């Protein structure tokens, strides 16, 4: 999934990678593509997840991983970091999610509609999705019980009511266009029909649909 995301990032993009799978994507881009990774905690210009030997005790991404710095990296305080985010300078924000819906909404911050069950934690996700030019998700296609996570409408409290353009799952790459899911790629070992059957909303199939090349 991280490799699929890394490959799809356009040269020259400014990108924020959310906690989990997305943070690994910074290890899958080419230096000549000049992609700049920033993180909510104020690091602008980081590289891959650091080995224990490379790690600096004061250099982390927002996902709590030690990362390397690229030449020209800088640090800003939290208010300036979110100034960068809110002022629309992020081309892409890649986030994890529990649910995504064909209307472009998604949910990733609370596992229940009742605050009594689950208080939740939002972090910077709502700031990111309010202002990034594109919202991409990296998520499991189904729950462990096999229930679909790609739905007509989210059942959990949403992180954003709109704006998702791409969903990368463990078995597929799905674009969100004009209120519809569109299958663009499927994982080796899966068929288009299987992916359709595991999706909880109508899934259009792109005429260019293909197997994910790793």
């Amino acid at each position: 999934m991280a490799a699929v995301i890394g490959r799809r990032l356009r040269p020259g993009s400014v990108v924020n990678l959310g906690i989990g799978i997305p943070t690994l994507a910074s290890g899958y881009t080419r230096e000549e593509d000049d992609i700049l990774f920033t993180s909510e905690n104020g690091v602008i210009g980081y590289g891959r997840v650091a080995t224990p030997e490379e790690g600096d005790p004061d250099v982390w991404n927002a996902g709590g991983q030690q990362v390397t710095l690229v030449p020209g990296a800088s640090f800003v305080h939290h208010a300036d970091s979110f100034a960068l985010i809110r002022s629309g300078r992020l081309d892409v924000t890649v986030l994890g999610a529990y649910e995504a819906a064909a209307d472009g909404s998604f949910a990733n911050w609370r596992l229940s509609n009742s605050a009594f069950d689950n208080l939740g934690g939002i972090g910077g996700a709502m700031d990111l999705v309010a202002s990034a030019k594109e919202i991409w998700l990296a998520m499991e296609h189904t729950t462990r019980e096999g229930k679909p996570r790609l739905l007509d409408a989210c059942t959990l409290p949403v992180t954003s009511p709109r704006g998702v353009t791409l969903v990368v799952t463990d078995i597929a790459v799905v674009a969100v266009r004009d209120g519809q899911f569109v299958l663009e790629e499927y994982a080796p070992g899966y068929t288009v029909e299987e992916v359709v059957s595991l999706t909880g909303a109508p899934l259009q199939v792109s005429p260019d649909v293909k197997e994910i090349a790793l």
Partner: protein
Amino acid sequence: MARPTIYPTMADAVADVPDGITLIVPGFGVGTPLNLLTALHQRGTKEITVVQNGAAQASTDPSVRNVGNLIEDGRVKKLIASFTAATHPSRPSITEQMARAGTLEVELLPQGTVAERIRAGGAGIPAFYTPAGVGTLLSEGKEHRVFNGRTYVLEEGIVADYAFVHAWKADTAGNLIYRHGARNYNPIAAMAGRTTIVEVEEPIVPAGTFSPDEIHTPGVFVTRMV
């Protein structure tokens, strides 16, 4: 006072911090003023309203007390944060457990809103509009307003009685320099505290040691240093 007072120990620096205060605590993995928090825990200050990015898991090292420990020990009345550190619904954090039990009030905000509310407080801005959280549960009941065709929500600045700050270097004039990602909330916290108390990693050097261009937080925002 134009110049901050330098205290010999963490305990001295927080010796008069009373119950019922509001307190801004920076930190995002690193850059947390753990020595001051430990001293505050030891002093026994309670009924605290804490503003922090997210309440950490309580420290299991008895020599280090963080906001998680303050919460666990019932010293925190209210928490304003963007994250409550629940790892899985089956294992609720102490913050969640106490929130459910009604013994801790929690105000959950988008992270950028936490940061900007602190920055606004330190900048004398009483309120501002932000797009974060519009259309979600977190903006319910808040005032909405449209500017240039887009909807925003009103948020108020936060000025706290105390701000604790973790700096890398400092001079006797109170000028601070942070290291890498340990900067995070520290510069804006320093500006938003009525009393700003700073723990410094390296020995405090004479004023004039730093270039005026490399200082991150001017000493005018600092009240006390250790």
